[in-house]
């Protein structure tokens, strides 16, 4: 099994609900708390597993805003795991989830240096590295109804821009979406082989913005009549 997320950049509206849901679930989960520093102060900061950036693609009038959620990519070749000197970072053989053992981490930050995606954040209060767990304490919870055994971010997304599934299964929803929509990994040139895959924005018909051509006598009379009539 190779569990991961598919994120649809065409659909994401950038509402940050996935980040909030992630924080809500994981603050009390196995790697919680996710400490906040000065949450109501002048310089609010804190630990998040999921961050949403906003990019603009191309230039006016062809520009488009792309909302860009990012969390751990659960890479196949995860350098964050190999550089870890204590063995706190590990990748599970059974499902490919990359985790940090909070009891072993010494807080040297080295794994965060090795991660190109900024997925790892040090928690100042515990002095340990924290990261997305793919809600490992939720997706296998037999006490939950089957449809709720998914990461919090996926369940909460109001736009259905996030999908969770097994990339090793060619017929899973995530594999099909990647195949049909031309999904791509981020920074493939670094050869980390990230599991999480992004779906590109769709090509849409361009809405003409030029002034409409004059329509002749009939059109002029219509426009004149429209100006006269008070609605």
């Amino acid at each position, binding site marked *: 099994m190779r569990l991961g997320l598919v994120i649809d950049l065409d659909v994401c509206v950038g509402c940050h609900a996935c980040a909030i849901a992630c924080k809500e679930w994981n603050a009390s989960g196995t790697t919680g708390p996710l400490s906040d520093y000065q949450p109501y102060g002048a310089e609010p900061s804190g630990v998040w597993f999921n*961050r949403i*950036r906003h990019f603009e693609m191309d*230039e006016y009038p062809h520009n488009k805003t792309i909302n860009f959620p990012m969390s751990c990519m659960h890479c196949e070749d995860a350098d964050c795991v190999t550089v870890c000197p204590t063995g706190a970072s590990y990748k599970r053989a059974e499902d490919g989830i990359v985790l940090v053992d909070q009891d072993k981490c*010494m807080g040297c930050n080295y794994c965060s240096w090795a991660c190109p995606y900024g997925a790892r954040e040090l928690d100042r209060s*515990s002095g340990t590295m924290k990261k997305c767990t793919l809600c490992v304490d939720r997706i296998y919870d037999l006490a939950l109804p089957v449809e709720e055994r998914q990461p919090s971010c996926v369940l909460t997304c109001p736009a259905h821009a996030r999908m969770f599934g097994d990339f090793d299964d060619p017929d899973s929803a995530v594999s099909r979406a990647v195949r049909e929509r031309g999904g791509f990994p981020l920074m*493939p040139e670094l050869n980390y082989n990230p599991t999480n895959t992004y779906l*590109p924005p769709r090509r849409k018909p361009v809405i003409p913005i030029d002034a409409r051509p004059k329509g002749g006598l009939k059109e002029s009379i219509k426009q004149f009549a429209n100006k006269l009539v008070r609605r």
Partner: protein
Amino acid sequence: MHPAFSVIFFTVASGAGFGLISLLFIADVFKLGGGFSREQLVIGGLIALSLIVFGLVSSTFHLANPKNAWRAMTRFRTSWLSREGVFAIAFMPLALVYLASIWFDAPSWLRETFGFLAAVLAWITVFSTGMIYACLKTIRQWNTPLVPANYLALGYASGSLLLLLGAVYARLDTTPYIAMSALIVSIAAVLKAIYYFWIRSPGLTPTINTATGLTRAKVKLLDAGHTHGTFLTEEFGFQIARRKASLLKIVVFAVGFMLPGLMLVWVFNQNGGPTAALVAVAAGIVGAAVERWLFFAEARHVVNLYHGAQRC
């Protein structure tokens, strides 16, 4: 990258210590300049060991959770950070046996075998320190074989200047020590110059396009999604003005390489003697510290592509 002072102090101090003990072994084997006495060798060795130990201890100050530091020995097979720790600890008993065999006039085969092993371990440890940085694909300024070469050259340059100071105080013939220092300091300067030349051109590196996968048009960041800083901006956001970096490179070459070189000439001409050697050591170590600070300050992590950088 944010330059952490504990790591700068650690790499400079332990590099000088490992360099000093390796070169002390060479001076001992070949009896350079008439050869140090038994006491002088042991004092020199203990100075080297204390530099290494102070360095290792200060390196734990940048850990957020130092109670787990002992676990850092466990991932020898994959992690250069782990390897560095293991080699540094394996080096200690070898160096202590070497110093003890000097002190107790042990047979020369024992003394030379352990001295050689300690010198090799010292070399491997400094190489591992460099590889901690050089193995990261995320920072192009570090991901080059010049990094371990620079770490070794600068460590040995500081060590050779310390050894020269010892030779001056021990009233030995300083010529072989001056020659050794001059050679190592100039190799270090040349390697550093190649490094600074090399990192000027970006080469094939990730861009904001490959980082977002949006490769068919210009991409720019509209909003990073946080109101104040994050762990990522604190750790990786550090940026140094190009003009300041250039100025510091001049400082590295003037203080770290030129001034020690000039002092070598002074020592050779019998002017100044101990003072000149002392200035050479101080300048060499200050230069190495500035170099190390700049090494961190100039490194740009690819995560900056998600915080507004166009390429790293």
